[in-house]
């Protein structure tokens, strides 16, 4: 008994060691190839100077971080609006009440139209068009209407993600909830949605990361956020390094965001499930 357990543990250890070695060797090979081979390219010194200039990087970074605050703001007020609107659209589209038929048609038209046009076009159309109607300040700001364009397009995409999640919850869950006397709204709110949202968190995060980057598109109609600031610095110093710096700033936000979500999902899974197949 003891020896079998010992042998199994030894086998597991050896297997783990082997995969660690394979991973380390292959990563090392790739990194070495890049570090050794890329500098051997004929124009490397010029690319190095115009894209990876340490001095320019250090010079631009504070300005970029300042400008990035605006990106974070646009993201911070757009995201909750997107989630709420997407949920309303998805729930309306999934409702079974005959009375909501006209609304269902409306939501279908909404998703089709918003998704069917490039997001840049919506930012131009709404961001320039609505303030053009002659609304008073501060409500004529391109910043507001650019964000509205982001909210509407992203809500259309994310509504479809929620809808897929809602439809993935088995009919028997609704039957059980209804048999307990819950109304159809209570069933949606307490039984269907919590399960649906858990299931769509990975694709939802995908869209959130995407939104985090698309926020930069609002700069097309005026506001100076990080991408625009990087462009200004690039022109001023005739050097592309600010773009690299902007890319690094984006990664500093998006990577921890995705890692944290994965960790949260894993924790939730471990809390609610029994045994796990390795």
């Amino acid at each position, binding site marked *: 008994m003891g020896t079998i357990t010992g042998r199994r543990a030894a086998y597991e250890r050896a297997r783990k060691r082997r995969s660690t070695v394979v991973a380390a060797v292959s990563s090392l090979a790739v990194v070495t190839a890049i570090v050794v081979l890329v500098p051997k390219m004929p124009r490397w010194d010029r690319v190095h100077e115009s894209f990876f200039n340490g001095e320019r990087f250090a010079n631009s970074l504070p300005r970029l971080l300042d400008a990035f605050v605006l990106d974070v703001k646009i993201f911070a007020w757009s995201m909750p609006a997107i989630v709420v609107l997407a949920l309303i659209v998805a729930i309306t589209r999934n409702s079974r009440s005959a009375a909501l038929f006209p609304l269902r048609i409306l939501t279908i038209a909404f998703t089709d139209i918003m998704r069917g046009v490039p997001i840049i076009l919506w930012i131009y159309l709404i961001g320039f068009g609505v303030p053009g109607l002659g609304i008073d300040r501060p409500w004529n700001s391109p910043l507001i209407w650019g964000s509205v364009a982001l909210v509407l397009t992203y809500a259309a995409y994310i509504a479809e993600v929620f809808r897929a999640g809602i439809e993935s919850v088995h009919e*028997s*869950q609704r*039957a*059980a*909830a*209804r*048999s*307990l*006397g*819950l*109304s159809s709204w*209570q069933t949606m709110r*307490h*039984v269907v949605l*919590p*399960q649906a949202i*858990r299931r769509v968190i990975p694709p939802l995060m995908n869209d959130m990361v995407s939104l985090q980057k698309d926020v930069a598109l609002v700069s097309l109609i005026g506001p100076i956020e990080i991408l625009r600031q990087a462009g200004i610095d690039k022109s001023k110093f005739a050097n592309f390094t600010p773009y690299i710096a902007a890319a690094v700033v984006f990664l500093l936000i998006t990577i921890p965001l995705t890692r944290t979500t994965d960790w949260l999902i894993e924790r939730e899974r471990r*809390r*609610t*499930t*029994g045994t796990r197949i390795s």
Partner: protein
Amino acid sequence: MSATKISLRDVHKSFGTNSVLNGIDLDIAEGTVVSLIGPSGSGKSTLLRCINLLEPIDDGQIFLDGIDISVPGFDANPVRRRIGMVFQNFNLFPHMSVQDNITLSPIRTLGVNKATARAKAAELLERFGLADKVNAFPDQLSGGQQQRVAIVRALAIEPEVLLLDEITSSLDPELVGEVLDVVRELKTSGMTLVLATHEMGFARDISDLVCLLDGGHIIEQGLPSQVFSAPQSERAQQFLERIIRAGRL
């Protein structure tokens, strides 16, 4: 003879071209146990779902305490709080702990406060030997435990009638006993029970009335001794012969 709790009059139900119930008449007396037996597809589950108003019927009437609950537009939610239902596949909510599964409806539909609902849940879990599972999640329980939790969940809203839809059909044989013990206890407590079942021996022992369904009709109805020992129709005799040959009775 006690009062009639539920009556069905000429109930019809079809799904598209597939007619599942073809004129069911049935009276369920308060405090009795009624078993629906019959081959798969005979309409047992559909009948239970119709009584719970999960499926609207096409024709006929369903009365609860003499009130027609099958009229179109009748508010189903209060009816369902009086008629509980337990399903073949448990249908527990996987994202909620056992406690939350049980207290959801009392808190949301009966307006019971959280502490009272939890105390009541703890009491029911204790009664059915599940006290240590209060914080477990459904996926962490065996099938028999899940089904007992599902029964507790249905009981937590204090229904007057409990519909049990083949509640042991998804269970391993050695887990069937623990669930049937729960049903026996419910009978002792005087609850009105309607069960669709393939457990013939159990149906014979526990029932006050047995209904044999076939092709959407009740083809034989009576005391267990009568239905199981001296069936009248030829179709009923054939069904019972097959059951006996399969060693299920």
